[in-house]
């Protein structure tokens, strides 16, 4: 299948008084039609900047896309002007933001906010747009649409507001949907509803999704493929099964180990020591080396390339080099993977 979006060697930097902050330092990935790619990582790993750069939503200046290509259906978005971008935003690519409290306009009726894009991009008349809004509200599961469109955002609960945001994002049938932590601010039960809704809609419309989150449970649920980001780079990328059942990068081990599982009894959680590096002066060599208990001499000197594990699975760690010693993942991770494999057969928790 053809790639809908292809990002090649993208670098994004911010010029500050302190110097150049290299937020994204050369990422490569692609998204196919109908596919969900999840990007995971800590705050400051560059996952939000990456996706904002795709939409060219980073403030320029101080930000700039230093290098690289963003090919969307063959067109390089990095070279488009703001005016051309405005035709794509909300139409071909749209975005769902994290906080439903701040991403809606509090002084505008909900119906008008959804209609805005339709009138602008689809050149619909008001009556047509209204009809479409009713359809959308039904699609995202907001009952009593007729009276709801005349209300303001503060009259909606958090989960309902996020549904409105999803409706706005879907209004023009985008080919690519970028969801930046869409459920982080919501309760587990509401989170589950929104995720089910998004998956359902994706099936109906065959759109592609980039899903950003730091919740690995959500990733396991929504993603077809996963990219793990650290310090502005993708350190591991593969299908969900590759990354969850056969993780290769020590950072992925750390992320998986730091989540308690419901079944296993561990005395202490596996915590990644230290904190992420300062991207104002990225360290020489592997950025993860200082927090990595398996770091070797070479990690401090040279950056590891992406090694191929299988056709779908790549990881950037020197541990995969043919001359590297064989290192097993920490006990906690092995146990966890084993537990997952036995549990998943049963399919329930009892």
């Amino acid at each position, binding site marked *: 299948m053809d790639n809908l979006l292809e990002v090649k060697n993208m670098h994004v930097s911010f010029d500050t008084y302190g110097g150049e902050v290299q937020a994204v330092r050369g990422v490569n990935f692609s998204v196919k039609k109908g596919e969900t790619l999840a990007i995971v990582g800590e705050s400051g790993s560059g996952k939000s900047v990456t996706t904002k750069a795709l939409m060219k939503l980073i403030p320029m200046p101080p930000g700039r896309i230093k290098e690289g290509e963003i090919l969307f259906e063959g067109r390089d978005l990095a070279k488009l002007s703001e005016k051309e971008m405005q035709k794509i935003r909300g139409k071909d690519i749209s975005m769902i933001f994290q906080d439903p409290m701040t991403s809606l306009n509090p002084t505008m009726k909900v119906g008008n906010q959804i209609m805005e894009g339709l009138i602008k991009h689809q050149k619909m008349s008001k009556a047509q747009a209204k009809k479409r809004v009713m359809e959308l509200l039904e699609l995202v599961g907001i009952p009593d649409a007729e009276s709801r469109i005349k209300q303001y955002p503060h009259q909606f609960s958090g989960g309902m507001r996020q549904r409105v945001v999803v409706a706005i994002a879907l209004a023009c049938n985008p080919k690519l949907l970028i969801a930046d932590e869409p459920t982080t601010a919501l309760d*587990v039960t509401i989170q589950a509803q929104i995720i089910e809704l998004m998956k359902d809609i994706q099936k109906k419309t065959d759109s592609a999704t980039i899903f950003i989150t730091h919740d690995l449970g959500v990733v*396991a649920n929504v993603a077809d493929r996963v990219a793990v980001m650290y310090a502005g780079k993708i350190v591991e990328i593969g299908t969900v099964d590759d990354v969850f059942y056969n993780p290769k990068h020590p950072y992925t081990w750390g992320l998986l180990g730091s*989540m308690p*599982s419901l079944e296993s009894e561990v005395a202490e*959680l596996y915590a990644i020591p230290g904190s992420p590096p300062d991207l104002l002066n990225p360290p020489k060599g592997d950025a993860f080396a200082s927090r990595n208990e398996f770091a070797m001499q070479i990690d401090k000197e040279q950056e590891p390339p992406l090694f191929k594990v299988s056709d779908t699975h790549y990881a950037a760690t020197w541990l995969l080099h043919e001359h590297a010693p064989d290192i097993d993942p920490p006990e906690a991770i092995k146990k966890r993977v084993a537990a997952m494999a036995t549990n998943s057969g049963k399919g329930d928790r009892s």
Partner: protein
Amino acid sequence: MTQEKLVEIKNLKQHFKTGRNSVVKAVDGLNFSIYKGETFGLVGESGCGKSTTGRSIIRLYNATDGEVLFNGENVHGKKNREQLKKFNREMQMIFQDPYASLNPRMKVVDIIAEGMDIHGLKGDVKARRAKVEELLETVGLNKEHANRYPHEFSGGQRQRIGIARALAVDPSFVIADEPISALDVSIQAQVVNLLKKLQEEKGLTYLFIAHDLSMVKYISDRIGVMYFGKMVELADADELYRNPIHPYTQSLLSAIPLPDPIYERSRERFTYNPNDHDTSEEPEFREVRPDHWVLCTTKEFENYQKEYSTVTE
């Protein structure tokens, strides 16, 4: 575990007036006890009153009705300064937002020592400094950090400062209100490990309030599930996860996404419908299995008992 009650909450009610004729019953008739040395987890969706409960226990709110007994003495009611101080020293709180809970104009040393100053525990300047440095090291920071301001720290480090501040007056009971919700996954694990370590070293008792159920399960000995100001289920952590009885608990558990793709593909979610309950009488808190309490009516109680008496574990 010796079952000595440290905190006993009896029929606690916290109502807020929101208008001339409307009252929000944030907490409505809560009964539970927290034993010495245990971690009691309190879970529920936002707006269910779990934070309000924590704040009422420590008297940040004056309870509308009911009692909170701490070591047998009521926290609420008329108190003079000395009596209040005594409680405040024994009970401390760790807040959710590490950015908002530290005064940006105070140095870390003064933030941590503030409690000691108020309670007259500081001794001379040198002793005060030494105690702060010791606390910083206990929570995994350096003593050089004492002279910095909160904005110089990351979220995880700030939460450590919040913990050091709570520990400064040697409390026996700590209320942690969503202490890790604002932190990254990897940092969450660091803070949870720290809380566990401190509990072992100092014999602390925790009330751990959170909505992240997998983390609550991990840290808690017993868990209470709240729904609209009422506790609907209370049991040992393992028991609750293995045999959730109340339909709300079941729906909450079925909604947790786990980092396991194959499991996720087959996961089925229950939705809780509060109208499904038997409404013939007011539900009461009843012990369905040993140490496993559920809010139910007589009829539901019989059904639950039948259904769960065969489950051995």
